[in-house]
C-alpha cells in the first residue's frame, strides 16, 4: 500500500484576523516531485512550516510519514531534508564544522556523497558561513539537506534571489533526489518555469486556499498545453511574481 508521505486535512491557520491557510487538504504519495506554487504571501511557507512541525495545527490535522510532526519531531525531522528560504545557517561555523555537526543527527549520512556535493558546489571547508555569498550559503544548506539522502526533501523558495548557476544546482539536486527511488520532493516557488521543469504534480495556492492540485500533465492537457504561468493567471487572476500581475 502506498501510504501518503504528507497528509494534510482541513488545515486552517490564522494570524490575527487574516487566514493564512483556510481548510487546506493535501495528500502527497511517495516518489514524486510536488511543486507548490503561489504568489508571495499565498501561504506556501505556512503550509511547509506545519509539515515541519514548526507551526501547530489550529484546526485540521497534519501527518508526515503517518506521524504528527509536533508530537514526534525527532522521528519526522530525521527523515526530512529541509532548505529554508531564510537560509539561517549559523554564521560562526566553518563549512567543515557544519558538515561534522550535521552528520551527528542523521544515521544515513553518506560521507562520500557529502564530499562529492561539497566539491561539486565548490565549498571550502575552512570558510566561515558568514563569509559565503548568498548563493554559496544556499549550496551549503542544500548540501546538508541532501547528504543523508532524506526520504522527503522540502525546498522552500530555494531559488529566491539566486543567480541562474545556483538555481541550476538546486534543480540538479531535485533531479538527483528523484533518481533515488521512492524519495519525494516538495518544492515551493513563485518561479513557475522552474517548477514546470521538474514537477510531476502541481498544487496552486492563493490567499490560503488550494485553487488547483493535479498532476502536471493532466493540468497541461486540460488547458490545451498552456504554460504554467498562463494556467496560474487563469485560475488566480494574476501572476505568481509581482512583474506578472495582471
Amino acid at each position, binding site marked *: 500500500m502506498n501510504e501518503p508521505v504528507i497528509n494534510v486535512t482541513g488545515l486552517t491557520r490564522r494570524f490575527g484576523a487574516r487566514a493564512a491557510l483556510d481548510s487546506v487538504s493535501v495528500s502527497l504519495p511517495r516518489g514524486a516531485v510536488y511543486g507548490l506554487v503561489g504568489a508571495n504571501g499565498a501561504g506556501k511557507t505556512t503550509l511547509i512550516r506545519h509539515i515541519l*512541525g*514548526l507551526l501547530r495545527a489550529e484546526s485540521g490535522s497534519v501527518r508526515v510519514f503517518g506521524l504528527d510532526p509536533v508530537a514526534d519531531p525527532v522521528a*519526522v525531522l530525521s527523515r526530512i531534508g529541509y532548505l529554508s528560504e531564510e537560509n539561517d545557517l549559523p554564521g560562526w561555523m*566553518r563549512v567543515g564544522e557544519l558538515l*561534522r555537526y550535521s552528520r551527528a*543527527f542523521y544515521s544515513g549520512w553518506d560521507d562520500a556523497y557529502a564530499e562529492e556535493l561539497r566539491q561539486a558546489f565548490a565549498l571550502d571547508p575552512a570558510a566561515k558561513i558568514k563569509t559565503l555569498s548568498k548563493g554559496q550559503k544556499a549550496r551549503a544548506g542544500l548540501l546538508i539537506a541532501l547528504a543523508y539522502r532524506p526520504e522527503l526533501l522540502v525546498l522552500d523558495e530555494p531559488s529566491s534571489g539566486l543567480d541562474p548557476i545556483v538555481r541550476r544546482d538546486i534543480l540538479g539536486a531535485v533531479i538527483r533526489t528523484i533518481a533515488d527511488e521512492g524519495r519525494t520532493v516538495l518544492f515551493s516557488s513563485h518561479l513557475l518555469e522552474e517548477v514546470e521543469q521538474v514537477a510531476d504534480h502541481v498544487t496552486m495556492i492563493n490567499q490560503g486556499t488550494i485553487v488547483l492540485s493535479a498532476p502536471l500533465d493532466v493540468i497541461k492537457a486540460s488547458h490545451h498545453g498552456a504554460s504554467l504561468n498562463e494556467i496560474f493567471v487563469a485560475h488566480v487572476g494574476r501572476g505568481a511574481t509581482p512583474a506578472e500581475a495582471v
Partner: protein
Amino acid sequence: MRSAAAAFAWEFRQRHRWGLAGLVVYLFVLAAIKMLFLARGHAISFDNNLSYAFVVVVPVTATFLYFLAVFSFGLAGDLAARQSMYPARLFTLPVTTAGLAGWPMLYGTVAMALLWAAMRLFALWPPEFDVPMIWPALLAASMLAWLQALTWMPYPLPGLRVIVTVLWLTAIDAVVFIAVEFKVREPVMLALLAPHVPLAYLAARFAVGRARRGHVPDWRRMFRPLSTFATVLANRRESFPSAARAQVWFEWRAHGRSLPLLVAILLPFELGQLFIHGDTPKLVFYTLAVVLLTPGFMAGFVSATASTSNPPFLATRPLSSASLIAAKLTATIWSTAAAWLLVLAAVPLGLELSGTWPVVIEPARRLHAVIGTPRAVVIGLLALSGLILWTWKRLVQGLYIGLTGRASLIKGNVFLTLSLLCVLGPALHWMIGNSLVRVAVVDVMGWLPAVLVPIKMAAAAWVVTRLYRSGLLSDRVLVTGAACWCAAVLALYGVLVWIVSTPLFPRSFLALVAILAIPLARLSAAPLALAWNRHR
C-alpha cells in the same frame, strides 16, 4: 518624511517607543515624588545609600546603557566582526556621510544630555550633595559619541573592536574619576570633556566613510600560521559520538564561551586594583568581593543572548525539545566551570603578585581559631559553591522566559525586574528606618520562606504536570530529576544544620531555606517554553 534628519528621528522613536514611554513614566513618577516631598516640606535625606541606588542609580544606569545600545545601532550588530556595525542598509540612502554619522550622534548626545537634565531636575538629591550642573551630561554624551565612532569603525582583526572600545572608554572614565578625586571645579571638567564630542564626530565620519566604501583593512595574513593551525586542529577533530554531544558543542561554541571571555577581559582590570590599594585591607576585600561577584553578574548579561535564540535552523534539528534544553544546560555548566576556573587561578596569582596574601590570610586565621578547621573549610566551600551555583542559576533562570521567543514576555520580564529593583530599595530603606516595622519584619521573617515554599512547590507541580501531559520528558527523567532535587535539598539542609547550630534558626526554617535555594520550577519550565516556541 521631509528630511533625512526627520527620517532618522522617526526610526529611533518608532523602534524604541515602548522603552521611551517607560522612561517618561519613570521620570513622571520621580517628579511627582519630588513635588510631594517639597509640598509637604520634608527634608530629603539619604542615610541609606542602598535606597538612593535603587531609586535613581539603577534606572539611570539601565537607561544610559539602553541609550548606548540604541544610538550606536549595537542592538543589531556583531561586536566581534571586522566589518562596521553601522547598518549597511543606510549606506545606499541619498544622504551624505556627514549626515549618516552626524544625525544618530546628534540625537544620541542630545538624548544623553536630556537624561542628565531630567535626573538633575526630578530626582531627590540629598541637600548636602553638590550636584554638578553640566559635566555629567557632557561625560555621558562623550561616552556615547566615542562608542558610536568606535563601533562604526571597520577593524583589521576580529575582536579588535571590543578591546579598543573597552580600553578607550575606560581611559576616559579613569581621567574623570581622577578629576573627581581631586575635586576639580566644573569649568575645568567642562574643558576636559568639551573636545570629546567633536573629535568623536570626526572619527565617526571617517569610520562611516570607510565602511560605506567597503574599505575593511585586513591584518589576518599576519596571523595566517595560527589560522592554519586552528583549521588543521578543526579538521582533525573526530565525529561527534551522538546528536546530543553535537548539540552541546553547538551551544558551547555559540554561547558558552561568552561568559569565560567576559570574565577574562574584566579580571585583569579588577585585580589590578590590588596593586593600587594593596595597603588598605578594606579595599582589598572590596576588590575580592567584586572579583567573586563578577561571574554571576556577567552571567546575567550572557543569559539574555543565550536564551533568546531559536532560529528555524535549530528548530528543525531532529532532536527533542528536552534534548535541546539538556544541551543548553550542559553548555552552561561548562561555561560556569570555565569562568570559575579562571577566577580561581587568577585570584591567588593576583594576591601573590600584589603581596596582599597576608591581608586575606589574617581574617581566615581568626575564623579558623573561632570555629575550628572543619567548619571553616565547610563555610569556605559552601560560600564558593553558593557563588558557583548562583552564577549557573543566573545563566539558566531566564531560559523559561527567553525560550518562549515572545518579545512581549521578554520585555515585560525586564521591565518587571527593573521596577521590582526600584521598589525594593525604598521598601528596605523604610523598613530599616522604622523600628516598629523592623521588629514586625523580624517577627514575620521566619514565616516568609513558609509562604514562598508553597508558591514554589505549586508552580513546580503545575510545570511537572504540564511536562508529564505533553510527553516532553519521559517518566524516568521526571522521577530522576525529582530524586536529584530532593537529594540536593537534603544535602544542603544537612550542611546548614551542621553549620548553623543556633536556636535562633529552627530546623524547619533551615529546611525551607534549602528548598528555596535549589532551582526547580523555573528550570523545569524551560522545555515547555522551548516547545511552545518551536511548535507555535
